[in-house]
């Protein structure tokens, strides 16, 4: 079951936002749509949720064709970047909204809302107004609100984009744990690769309206299909004719077989790590070392060293 978006195309004002995109999400999985801003991921999400209609293609949710069914009847939970809180309703009424609209009995609503308030740790805020909540609290409320109607699918559109970095990290962990508890099929959109790598079971990288690669975070990070995916998911540098991750380069103080000679031009300490910029014959690679590694090599600007890709390093031919 799960969700499938098949051969979706959508054009806005002459520009193709999505071009024959197919993405599938297994039931109960947490999938991230990752890509740069304007790449089409939000559009895809909104099409899955029924907030937009595709020009071509179809959407299937839990085995049922959903294309043409408006958002009201798709039973999807949607969480927006800027919370979309109902400002004139209390937190309790916000969460209860979907149930009230379905005319559920008051007792049932009260039980469910209380459950959800506990789930998102907002029990003490039930009677507050959204304006009295912090951004992170508002987004937790929005999640509770979306979950209240027991949707078959949860869709999150850059849910942490409007929050401070620290709150973002906290909520990221919290979302992961929530998903482990609740197991709703979830798709979330983000342009932050760290977020996607940390939270998702599976990633789909979308760029310029097309899917670049789909797979687990490890698969995409270690075996990127092309240089876009490689560059987007993590740091990349060029060693000779290949693209490689800076932390996958071994540095030797003495000449070694299959190693490229390079001169250290700059050393920069960033917290726990050391970033070394070098110049080789025709490229200017940089290497990421731990403090320990840098100290044991006693690196200094001007030193000559030899660089070699680590044994299992993933590399791509540079285009």
């Amino acid at each position: 079951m799960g969700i499938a978006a098949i051969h979706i195309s959508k054009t806005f004002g002459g520009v193709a936002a999505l071009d024959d995109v197919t993405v599938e999400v297994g039931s109960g999985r947490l999938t991230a749509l990752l890509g740069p801003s304007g790449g089409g991921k939000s559009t895809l999400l909104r099409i899955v949720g029924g907030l937009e209609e595709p020009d071509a293609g179809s959407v299937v949710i839990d085995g049922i064709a959903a294309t043409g069914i408006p958002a009201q009847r798709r039973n999807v939970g949607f969480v927006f970047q800027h919370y979309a809180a109902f400002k004139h309703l209390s937190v309790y009424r916000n969460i209860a909204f979907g149930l009230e609209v379905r005319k559920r009995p008051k007792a049932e609503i009260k039980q469910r809302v209380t459950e959800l308030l506990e789930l998102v740790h907002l029990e003490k805020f039930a009677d507050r107004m959204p304006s009295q909540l912090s951004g992170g609290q508002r987004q937790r409320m929005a999640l509770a609100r979306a979950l209240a109607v027991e949707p078959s699918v949860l869709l999150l559109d850059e849910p942490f984009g409007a929050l401070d970095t620290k709150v973002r990290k906290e909520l990221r962990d919290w979302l992961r744990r929530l998903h482990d508890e609740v197991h709703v099929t979830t798709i979330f959109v983000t342009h932050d690769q760290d977020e996607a790598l940390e939270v998702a079971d599976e990633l789909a990288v979308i760029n310029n309206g097309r899917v670049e690669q789909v797979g687990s975070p490890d698969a995409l990070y270690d075996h990127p299909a092309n240089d876009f995916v490689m560059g987007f998911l993590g740091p990349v540098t060029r060693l000779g004719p290949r693209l490689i991750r800076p932390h996958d380069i071994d540095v030797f103080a003495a000449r070694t077989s299959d190693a490229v000679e390079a001169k250290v031009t700059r050393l920069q300490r960033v917290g726990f790590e050391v970033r070394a910029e070098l110049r080789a014959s025709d490229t200017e690679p940089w290497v990421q070392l731990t403090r320990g590694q840098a100290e044991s090599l006693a690196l200094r600007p001007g030193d000559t060293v030899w660089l070699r890709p680590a044994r299992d390093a993933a590399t791509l031919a540079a285009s």
Partner: protein
Amino acid sequence: MTLAPAVARRGAGFRRGAGQSDGRVPLRTAAGLGLGAAVLWLSLLVLLPLAAVVVKATGNGWSGFWDALTSREALSALRLTVFSSIGVAALNAIIGTLIAWVLVRDSFRGKRVVEVVIDIPFALPTIVAGLVLLTLYGPHSPLGVNWYATTRGVILALLFVTLPFVVRTVQPVLIGLDRDVEEAAASLGASRFTTFRRIILPAILPAIAGGAALAFARAMGEYGSVVLISGGLQFKTEISSMYVYSQIENDELAAAAATATALLVISLVVIGLLDIVQRWAARHG
């Protein structure tokens, strides 16, 4: 922007973040002189004259004021005026919101024409409006109706001049509404009507109330557009502004001032209430 109440946007204020300066500075001498000039100007033009009305009305003491206000003719005119104004404000609240909705959410050929036409009653000289309405709905009407000297005619005239008020106060609010809140409601299963009732309506209610209050105040004092079609029948189609005018013509200035004061007070109370409602709504929205 349109011709009709840009004045309704008074609340706008300087948009800087909370805790930041609003850019205003205290008065220095030059500006202080300017303030003095402004105060003098407003006093001569507005304060003094309005005060004179109140003073004249109460010149014969409270009993004199009350007697003049509640004379048969004055009272009948006031009753007609107040009830018509309330009715017109209420009708405008509904139809004005509908028109604003269509202008903001719908698109069709000729929408711009509708936008311009809505502004006409606000810009048109009131006496011309009166003549226009008399021509269509009075004697010699091409439609075959004759609403001259009827309350129907009075109400029609008031509807004409108050058309833009609710539309123009609600329109900007509708335009500024965050669509994702409506999408959230839809994703939670709310029908279009439910979304309107539970989500949109609470958000535009202050604007509707504001527009209705402006329409009420305008209708209370309207003269030029009503005077022709009303015919001024005492106790039947004479509105308060016409009564005041006839008292001025008869040099009964105290009687005129009494009703004039009542008109002023009622309009000001309504506008004051509206201001309070809007502040309350702003704090909760």
